[in-house]
């Protein structure tokens, strides 16, 4: 690990100024991803600005929904009564991620900004465009079981590993950012980039941009929502594919729906095409399958992950079917 200075920030503005003013500086949340990367040699900041104790640790009800502070721990968010009641998909996604010990430490912002688990990204002895731009992609032609089937490029086929983010994208979450130039908001779905020819950039954030909160708009029908995660072992394992869904039924028809996919792309994947297919149509298994297939027309599986296409389709159908049955 390279040596670094440590600063415990007292307020958000101080934290932003400290990081913005130094190219090698980084924010420190719980550290469960960043400290791991520092040990592996994937990251080497020369200053850590600890933002985990900032007064951003509250979940508050607002006129428009729920405001989640950036420093709220994953376990506290999952256990929050309003999240359990109104956004079960979010509580479930959080509870399916990592372990009890990690969730007690991991923060909301850190979870959103955790980096890919691509094994080559984490191994400094192998070429990786995300870690060293222009060095090549070892996954292409290599081990691709955990890699993307949607939206990838010839430069990078990595997936975003967060479960929480998939649920938040389905819920139309908005991210509140404080940067050197002031505060701004942006939809979470637009925070994340596709790899294109610059896979070293996971998000549109600039150096010194601090996430201060995530806002969830009101979505009454999200009380009927679910998260389904398919993985290699029953617990404490990243998703092969995952599905976040909320379903609003009008008798046997779909009045409205929210659908997002995890484990399939460089960002949490909002399945807009499938949603469009479903809205106004019958809430039947056939219709669910057709919608999933419409979304997956764009899939370009790799040699090691062709199974993900059928797995994603089946997971979407199973999730929606279970939600529809819950309503009867």
């Amino acid at each position, binding site marked *: *690990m390279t*040596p*670094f*200075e*440590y600063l*415990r920030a007292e307020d958000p503005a101080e934290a932003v100024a400290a990081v913005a003013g130094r190219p090698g500086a980084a924010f*420190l949340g*719980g*550290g*469960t991803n960043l*400290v*791991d990367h*520092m*040990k592996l040699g994937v990251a080497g900041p020369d200053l*850590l600005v*600890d933002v*985990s104790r900032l007064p951003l640790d509250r979940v508050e009800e607002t006129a428009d929904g729920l405001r989640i502070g950036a420093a709220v721990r994953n*376990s506290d968010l*999952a*256990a929050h*009564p309003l999240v*359990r*009641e109104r956004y*079960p998909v979010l*509580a*479930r996604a959080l*509870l*399916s991620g*990592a*372990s*009890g*010990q*990690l969730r*007690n*430490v991991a923060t909301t912002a850190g979870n959103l900004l955790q980096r890919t688990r691509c094994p080559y990204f984490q191994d400094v002895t192998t070429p990786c465009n995300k870690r060293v731009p222009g060095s090549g992609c070892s996954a292409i032609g290599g081990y691709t079981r955990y890699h993307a089937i949607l939206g990838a490029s010839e430069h990078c086929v990595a997936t975003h590993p967060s479960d929480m983010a998939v649920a938040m994208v389905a819920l139309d979450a908005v991210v509140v950012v404080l940067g050197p130039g002031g505060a701004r908001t942006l939809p979470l779905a637009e925070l994340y980039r596709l790899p294109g020819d610059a896979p070293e950039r996971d998000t549109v954030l600039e150096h010194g941009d601090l996430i201060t909160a995530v806002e969830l708009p009101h979505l009454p029908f999200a009380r009927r929502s679910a998260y389904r995660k398919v993985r290699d072992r*029953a*617990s*404490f394992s990243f998703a092969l594919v995952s599905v976040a869904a909320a379903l609003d039924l009008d008798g046997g028809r779909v009045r409205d729906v929210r659908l997002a996919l995890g484990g399939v792309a460089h960002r949490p994947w909002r399945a807009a095409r499938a949603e469009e297919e479903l809205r106004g149509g019958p809430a039947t298994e056939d219709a669910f399958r057709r919608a999933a297939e419409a979304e997956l027309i764009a899939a370009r599986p790799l040699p090691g992950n062709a199974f993900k296409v059928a797995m994603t389709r089946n997971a979407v159908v199973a999730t929606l079917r279970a939600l529809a049955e819950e309503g009867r």
Partner: protein
Amino acid sequence: MDARITLRVDGRVRPVALDTRTTLLDALRDHLSVTSPKKGCDHGQCGACTVLLDGRRVVSCLILAVACDGAEVTTAQGLAEEGEPHPVQRAFLEEDAFQCGFCTPGQVCSAVGMLEEVKAGHPSDATDDLTGPVTLDDEEIRERLSGNLCRCGAYVNIVAALREEAES
């Protein structure tokens, strides 16, 4: 870069000077000679380093010691009061819930933290009703302790030890 911090470890105030790169686990083991938390993977994947930090279970290998200045740390060693094993430790002994014992201090701390979470009504991935009360059945125990691996495969008896705890 050097830093001076103070931890309260197993009830004792322990000032310590260390490099900022030191994890909480290395601070405990190498600087303070508190060796009950074990280093298995050093990457958050095995749970052997689990301790209670301000009462909550955490993996100490991914937390920087400097970020813990002023915190209260309880290790498996500190759970025992006046030489008397903690009820969870006693249950592990009674149910033969270990073989080599390497994972055990982490398992015990994790279990103590987990029982507090259950008491507070926190659901897990195995909980059917997110808003209802939690019943700590075997499936719940396994899910809630999935962050602690045991290479000896003592899982069956670990579950038995905690089932006993859950019932009492």
